[in-house]
């Protein structure tokens, strides 16, 4: 039950994108099409879960016992960068079209603060291994959900007669803002 609440919290209430505003870069960058957004969501899920696991192990297994917890950030970045590199290679190999579609945003997962954020939050909140796993997965699901909803809305906006001044990122940010407002309704849940 606790894990479920944690998951709901991570997906809806504390949504990475809409409540914590982490990872806005891919949110705006690759949300023009639902298919791309889906690919991005999966890539992020993969990296997030794996990175959280590895960083948790490093923190708990190596850094903490050695008393060098202050290396957290640099060590985590190292891990995340390597994992993103791996993901990039895998996607390029198995889905060149998705690789094309994601473009620069794929390597940019490295600097996606959502990933590092989740890894650090896991440590800061002192989560156990299972809790950490559930939280990372749920958080990435929440990320994917927001990305997908946003992509759907933007696809619809493609046909809209948006005034010149608001084309592109401007209207997208307004949509993101309203979406965020809507998700505030979940606050106080659990």
């Amino acid at each position, binding site marked *: 039950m606790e894990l479920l609440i944690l998951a709901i919290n991570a997906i809806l209430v504390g949504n990475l994108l809409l409540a914590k505003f982490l990872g806005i870069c891919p949110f705006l960058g690759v949300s023009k099409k*639902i298919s791309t957004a889906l690919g991005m969501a999966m890539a992020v899920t993969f990296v997030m879960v794996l990175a959280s696991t590895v960083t948790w192990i490093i923190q708990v297994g190596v850094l903490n016992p050695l008393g060098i917890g202050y290396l957290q950030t640099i060590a985590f970045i190292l891990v995340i960068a390597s994992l993103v590199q791996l993901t990039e290679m895998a996607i390029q190999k198995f889905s060149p079209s998705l690789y094309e579609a994601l473009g620069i945003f794929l390597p940019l997962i490295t600097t996606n603060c959502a990933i590092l954020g989740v890894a650090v939050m896991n440590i800061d909140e002192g989560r156990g291994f299972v809790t950490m796993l559930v939280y990372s997965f749920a958080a990435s699901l929440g990320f994917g959900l927001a990305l*997908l*909803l*946003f992509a*759907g*809305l933007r*696809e*619809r*906006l493609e*046909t*809209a*007669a*948006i*005034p010149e001044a*608001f084309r592109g990122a*401007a*209207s997208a940010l*307004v*949509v993101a803002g*309203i*979406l965020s*407002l*809507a*998700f*505030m*309704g*979940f*606050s*106080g*849940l*659990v």
Partner: protein
Amino acid sequence: MAAEDKETSKNAGPGAASDAGKRTATDSPVEATADSPEEATADSPEEAAPQMLTVASSPHVRSGESTSRIMWTVFACLLPAAGWSVYLFGMKAAIVLATCTGGAVVIESLVQYFTRGRTSVQDGSAALTGLLLALTLPPGASVVICLVGAFVGVVVAKAVFGGLGHNPFNPALTARVFLLIAFPGPMTRWPIPLQALADKPQKLYGQSTSWLDAAGRSLDFANAKTGAALHSLAAKVDVITAATPLAVAKEHWKRGTGELTTYSDYFVGSMPGSLGEVSVILLLLGAAVLLIRGYISWHIPVSFLLGVIVMAGLTHLANPTRYMDPIFHLLTGGVIIGAFFMATDYVTSPTYPLGMVIFGLGCGLLTMIIRLWGGFPEGVSFAILIMNACTPIIERYTRPTRYGLKPWAEPEAS
């Protein structure tokens, strides 16, 4: 001449369909009668050379339905409820209604003026947005709040995306949620209806009346429990507010106190609440008109209410002392206005029947989730906005099955 009107109102190409060009074309040799054009015009004016025919793609007839007619009809269907709220809350309500509606119309005109866009004020969508917004506000909302709301609704939620038809979120609800989060205090101060004040001073919506006593004492009213006393009290203070039944319900299970008004009050609206949530009967009346005239379909409202009933019913059965029963949830808050007037907004809800049902159920369930377990007492606005966000995805996967896929086997084979 009508044909002349047609000519000028024609869709003009970029500099192409200049009137000059058109007129020279009119006296082209091809279009002239057998007589030369000069001769024709020399005759009586009725016998003048015929105007050029218009061509357009089929169909050449239309149903006569128009966007503005739809919008103004919905507007009209909301008026009884708006009028009732004025009766209940007095001038305060009238001011809110006027500011929101008027503000929205004025702002839309300004937007139209500055962007030279094709959204037109006459289509009534701005007025409807304003009216809907007003109906979601507490009666005492200040003019500034109303204007900010109108601006958010008309500009941020609509004009930014290209006007009516392109807005992904319900403008009125976007504005309301914005106000709710930006001005949490004023937006949750619910005045008590004047009628209720007069008739039932003792039953102030589950509130222990001790705070009124306190207020009365501070204003030299020893005992404020009688109607007359309350009336004079009301004259002294700006406004007497109370919690809405939903807020009471929320507190109710937290503190185990409080008592609620009866259902009949909800029906006729003698309860604190926003302008539009107070009278269920008049809202249903307007909704019935829309349903009968086919302006809205049953799918969204019914599934919305169903979602609320199911969720409320299940929780009530599980724990009647903590959770209120479904009827309470249906009649309070904005469920009725939300289900019939907000969620059914064409632009932001799915178009296909299956999608509508999913949308409605989603709205109902989310409303109840937020009401029962969330931080806000009322969840209708949030629920609808969240489902608005889901609309494109729902729509994508609920398209109707096209004709021609039903298999047919030859009689011999079957």
